[in-house]
């Protein structure tokens, strides 16, 4: 993302080819909305399927409108180096802005980040509260993180030798989405019946359709190719090689993560677990987001294997802490996002890093002898973004809780949101 020439001249055929690449990637990223929608619909119970779908639709539609109106300006306004490192201040409503393909791509990223949250909050919150956090995220929380990490004058971009490296949104999209989801799900509390009221042991509340779930995961995987390879923002000037590398490393990392979980669970419990394996696959994709363009394939393999354990550990930890995340969104996006962002400081090679930065650099992955600096910067950036999300989203959710806008009443939760709020169930067979 944007390490590559964003503001370069847009002339001639190669510019056209670059934009074409970005547009195609944008479509793929938008298509991830379909994937998330199916994933989430499959994992909730049938009585709540419709409500989770409407949340998906709301966050895409409303989120897009607000990002167009405000978010993009706050994130990428005044991208010349002279301006404000904290917040962008121009191009609201796309006024005086021409690079529409770049805008569309960023837009799709923002929609992805928002939609991650709705997974964590599934099956028990008001549709209205979904509206509220969508507005807050797309107009304020997400754009500022994006500005800090991705805009030329963002302050996290400017620290250290290389600045923070987040190739395609491991921090900006996944950590932000996952972290806000985690705060939300903690404050909302577990679904009724998720933890035994006496012993506190978790009880499974299986989703209504693994088929939809898997379909969703495959669509997300498909869309992820746009997500990760589109972040080169073009193909000319050797960027296609970066894109090819990203495609290969993300595939390897996703598959390694999936296989690891599959076998680990088989060895431990004697069964194959589809849901956990697929989640782990997504975790592998997420952990590749920040780092895919700057690692070798074998490093991607290791990153994927570790991501599996990061996901499994986080998922188990959440249950221990009695935090109920229906989709494991925070384990997937938050925990694996953090791991991916850290792995930049561990596995990035000098050659690849120089390639995406377009200049020689002496600071690179720890395991290749590049020193601790990049790892430190990544860690700092992650902490900053987490603190920012924790702070803003806690305020947001607490206010909503105060006004009883957050969680639906227990009786309605037992009946299902669909009947009461959305006017009927999702299925009639």
């Amino acid at each position, binding site marked *: 993302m944007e390490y590559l020439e964003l503001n370069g001249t847009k002339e001639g*055929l*190669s510019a056209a*080819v670059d934009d074409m*690449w970005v547009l*195609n990637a944008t479509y*793929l990223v938008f298509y991830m909305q379909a994937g998330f929608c199916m994933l989430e619909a499959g994992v909730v*119970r*049938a*009585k709540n399927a419709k409500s989770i779908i409407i949340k998906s639709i709301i966050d895409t539609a409303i989120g897009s409108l607000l990002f167009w109106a405000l978010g993009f300006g706050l994130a990428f306004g005044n991208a010349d180096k002279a301006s404000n490192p904290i917040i962008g201040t121009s191009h609201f409503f796309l006024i005086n802005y021409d690079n529409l393909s770049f805008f569309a791509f960023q837009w799709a990223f923002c929609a992805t980040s928002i939609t991650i949250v709705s997974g964590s909050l599934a099956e028990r919150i008001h549709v209205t509260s979904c509206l509220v956090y969508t507005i807050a995220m797309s107009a304020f929380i997400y754009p500022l993180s994006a500005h800090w990490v991705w805009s030329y004058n963002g302050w996290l971009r400017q620290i250290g030798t290389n600045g923070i490296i987040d190739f395609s949104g491991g921090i900006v999209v996944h950590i932000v989405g996952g972290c806000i989801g985690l705060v939300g799900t903690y404050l909302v509390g577990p679904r009724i019946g998720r933890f035994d009221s006496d012993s506190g042991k978790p009880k*499974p509340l*299986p*989703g*209504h*359709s*693994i*088929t939809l779930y*898997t*379909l969703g*995961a*495959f*669509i997300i*995987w*498909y869309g992820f*190719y*746009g997500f990760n*390879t589109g972040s080169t923002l073009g*193909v*000319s*000037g*050797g*960027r*296609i*090689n970066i*894109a*090819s*590398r990203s*495609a*290969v490393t993300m*595939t*390897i990392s*996703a*598959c*390694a993560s*999936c*296989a690891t979980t*599959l076998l680990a669970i088989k060895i431990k419990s004697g*069964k*194959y*677990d*589809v849901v956990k*394996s*697929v989640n782990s*696959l997504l975790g592998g994709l997420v952990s590749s987001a920040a780092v895919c363009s700057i690692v070798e*394939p*074998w490093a991607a*393999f290791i990153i994927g294997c570790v991501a599996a354990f990061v996901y499994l550990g986080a998922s188990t930890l959440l249950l221990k802490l009695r935090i109920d995340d229906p989709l494991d969104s925070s384990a997937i996006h938050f925990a694996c996002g953090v791991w991916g962002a850290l792995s930049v400081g561990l596995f990035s090679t000098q050659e690849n890093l120089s390639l995406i930065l377009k200049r020689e650099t002496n600071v690179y992955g720890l395991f290749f002898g590049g020193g601790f600096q990049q790892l430190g910067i990544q860690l700092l950036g992650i902490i900053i973004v987490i603190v920012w999300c924790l702070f803003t989203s806690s305020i947001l959710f607490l206010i909503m809780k105060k006004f009883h806008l957050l969680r639906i009443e227990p009786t309605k939760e037992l009946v299902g949101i669909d009947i009461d709020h959305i006017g009927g169930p999702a*299925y009639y*067979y």
Partner: protein
Amino acid sequence: MEQFSMSSSSDEASSSEYSLEYYMDTSWILDAANLVFFMQAGFGMLEAGMVRAKNTKSILLKNVINTAICAISYYCLGHSFAFGKANPNSFMGFGNYFLMDYNHYAYWMIQWAYAATATTIATGAMAERLQLHCYILFTLVQTVLIYPFVAHWIWSQNGWLFDLGIVDFAGGAVIHIVAGITGACGSFLLGPRIGRFNQDSGKPKNLPGHSVVLMSLGAMILWYSWYGYTAGASMGMTKNRVIPASRVSVVVTLSAATGLVTVLAIGKICKGHYDLVKGINGLIAGLVSSTSSCAYIEPWAAIVIGFIGGIVYYASSWALLNWLRLDDPVDSTAIHLFGGCWSLISVAFFATHGRVRNPEITLPGGIFYGGGISLLWVQLVGMVLAILWAGFLSAIFFFTMDYFGKLRVDVDTELAGLDNSNDGSRAYTFD
């Protein structure tokens, strides 16, 4: 595939690595690879719809396994055996293990996606009764030992069938025949599902899948991704390669449509109603029928090929079931093995356009264009060798598994559904 000599252009890539042509070609390959990958979703939904609800979860797991394990094994060894650059010989490739010293990542992407397709198609035939760990082992065997060799022979510039001038644009032999025959072997050794044949009369009974909607979704996704699958085999857009890519898109659509219409019409005539399940299979058979030839034929020939492909599918599906007693839950043998054979043979009759991938051999033109039957012999040799190689190796594998009792699930599990025993819970919960 490679007839536009991908590997040679990557040799000269060092000179042209920073040209716009190179960027465009690579981006074309990457886009196509994404689409080919998306076929996994298509096959996943197709197969999930065609099995019974109690086995849905296991079939989905199977598809995830196919894709994931295939990526890892193809990354480690498979790609080297197929397209490795060290020690070139006509039988197999060496070198570039773990993608070391290999730069053409986009090429790896699309080849991996092809390999994953071959694995997924094959395992569909064994649905509803294979033990789950067999899927993992089979994926390893398929992507390391079976598929790469055929791919090397036909698609690599050193392959011996390549030298003979075999024409297989998008993998009628490499993918469909290999996948079809391995699936058929597995399915045959497994035996039919319980209840598939009446115990007394031996007549086949229908075991309908649980959702035609999912099936159709899968077929539509396949149709979509088939464009990337076939057009991507041009391996680029420049140097006039966009012209075959356009031709491919038209041809594939026509043969798919004809396949569907043919099978629906046969069903309407024979049974008196439109049979959607068969029709969808006919659609896929139509797609498969033109894979080898799609860059070389006229649109009208696509109609003929699709029409015959539909008939081939319908007849072989009936014959396999009634004569061979082969119980293939997703009909992948009839579609992919016979469809793949037909696609490989049909090139020899209808080919007219383009040039063969081996630049030293000019495509003689099909029999209908007065090109003589030399090409037909080459195609037949390729077909037979692919069948023998893949059939032999996969038979050994399945025999071994069977010998150790690791092939088929036990009767209780099969009756209860694989989901209930292997994965813990059902795919659907409507309460």
